[in-house]
């Protein structure tokens, strides 16, 4: 074995401070590799000594406290104003066990419900949604706010596309840890966003009502979004081979919804 090979083998050990006999024999007779071995050992030792600053808040104590006192440990869902289309469903979700996924359900419903209640001038509905302390929910709320501000159909289409992407990414992240029921919920919301958000919004942009340049923009957007749906389908499909069996159905639903959405968008793009 040459020195380079020995040195690489030291670095690939679980712990360079514990050398197997095969390496020790060479190192005993080689000063260069001896120095290397000492440096590698010291590196691991120093890595273990890297200081960690204390957490700035008191969140551990809060969680422990809540658990100990028997308080529900929930991520606070959004305050849902009365929405014509989705209030009933939203409240039903909120009444259920308030897991992270419960909060997500409410957040997604806010987005879809809010869009349906915008006034013709684009004024967002009255009522404040509190931003929850949850990165994914924050993203959903940001989509909701962007939707309220969007003036052009193509902007709304992009936002719905982004929301679909957020949901498919979240589903893939949760696929190994969420329960099958929770994952199915996310898949269902994804399906809703694609059908009721993306495809419906695209239908509200018929080509024959647009100027030539707007038609070109429309086709470009529809093709781009179809491409993103295709990408979501491919990534999710790839994951179905890597998750527990009870997660596959939900992921497959996302794949099917994404592909169906892609097909519809391409038809609309080509028809226009």
């Amino acid at each position, binding site marked *: 074995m040459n020195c380079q090979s020995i040195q690489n083998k030291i670095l690939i050990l679980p712990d360079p401070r514990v050398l197997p006999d095969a390496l020790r024999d060479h190192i005993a007779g080689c000063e260069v590799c001896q120095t290397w071995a000492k440096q590698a050992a010291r590196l691991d030792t120093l890595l273990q000594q*890297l*200081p960690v600053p204390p957490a700035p808040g008191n969140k551990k104590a809060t*969680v422990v406290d809540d658990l100990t006192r028997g308080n529900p440990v929930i991520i606070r869902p959004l305050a849902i104003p009365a929405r014509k289309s989705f209030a009933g469903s939203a409240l039903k979700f909120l009444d259920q066990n308030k897991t992270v996924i419960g909060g997500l359900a409410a957040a997604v419903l806010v987005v879809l419900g809010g869009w349906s209640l915008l006034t013709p001038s684009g004024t967002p509905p009255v009522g404040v949604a509190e931003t929850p302390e949850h990165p994914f929910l924050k993203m959903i709320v940001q989509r909701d706010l962007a939707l309220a501000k969007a003036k052009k159909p193509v902007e709304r289409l992009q936002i719905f596309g982004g929301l679909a992407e957020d949901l498919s990414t979240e589903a893939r992240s949760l696929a190994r840890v969420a329960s099958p029921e929770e994952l199915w919920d996310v898949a269902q919301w994804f399906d809703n966003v694609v059908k009721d958000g993306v495809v419906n919004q695209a239908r509200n942009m018929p080509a024959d009502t647009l100027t030539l340049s707007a038609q070109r923009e429309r086709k470009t957007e529809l093709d781009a979004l179809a491409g993103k749906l295709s990408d979501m389908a491919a990534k999710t499909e790839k994951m179905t081979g890597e998750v527990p069996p009870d997660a596959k159905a939900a992921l497959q639903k996302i794949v099917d919804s994404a592909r169906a959405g892609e097909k519809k968008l391409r038809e609309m793009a080509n028809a226009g």
Partner: protein
Amino acid sequence: MIRETDPTLPNEEAEWIRAAQSGDRDGFNRLVERYWDRLYRWLYRMTRDRHTAEDLTQETFLKALGAVQSFRPGSNFRAWVFRIGHNNFVNQKRSERRTKHQLPEDAAAPDVGGVEITTENREALEVIHQAVADLPDDFRSALLLRVEEGLSFREVAKILGTTEETARWRVFKARQKLMKVLSPELLPPGATAGETT
């Protein structure tokens, strides 16, 4: 000095998990007590921000609480929780910009069983801290899980959603990069380059 891994008390932890899955919050509480600081430490290294690390740690345990029913008894709870933490980190990275922090002057000394940090070591630590922060996320996460957490390559692979071979490779590449960057700092205190021992 080899960091002692958490003394395994499989029966005790299994009991806590069983209790948590039956709705006993005290069971889950004990799991939080056991793993919170470790997870925070790792997430701090990944995010390089105390606030974000704490938020992610909290989010991870809340998600774990919500999903504890889906945890398979007998499998590795620590790896499961860290996996959730890793997913949260990946999601967070997508939505927030990361800021790098210098090693704070008043950084808390870690619990290393009473090992004293000498002045020479402290200087080396500052350089290593930055070098570790500069590693690609994949390499850094694998290296720290292996070295700081004492996890096996197989456990590291499970957490990062990859194969054991890839986990081993990432640790190797991380060490290789650090060795290249840090060779003067890695000489034992008092030694000079070229000195034979």
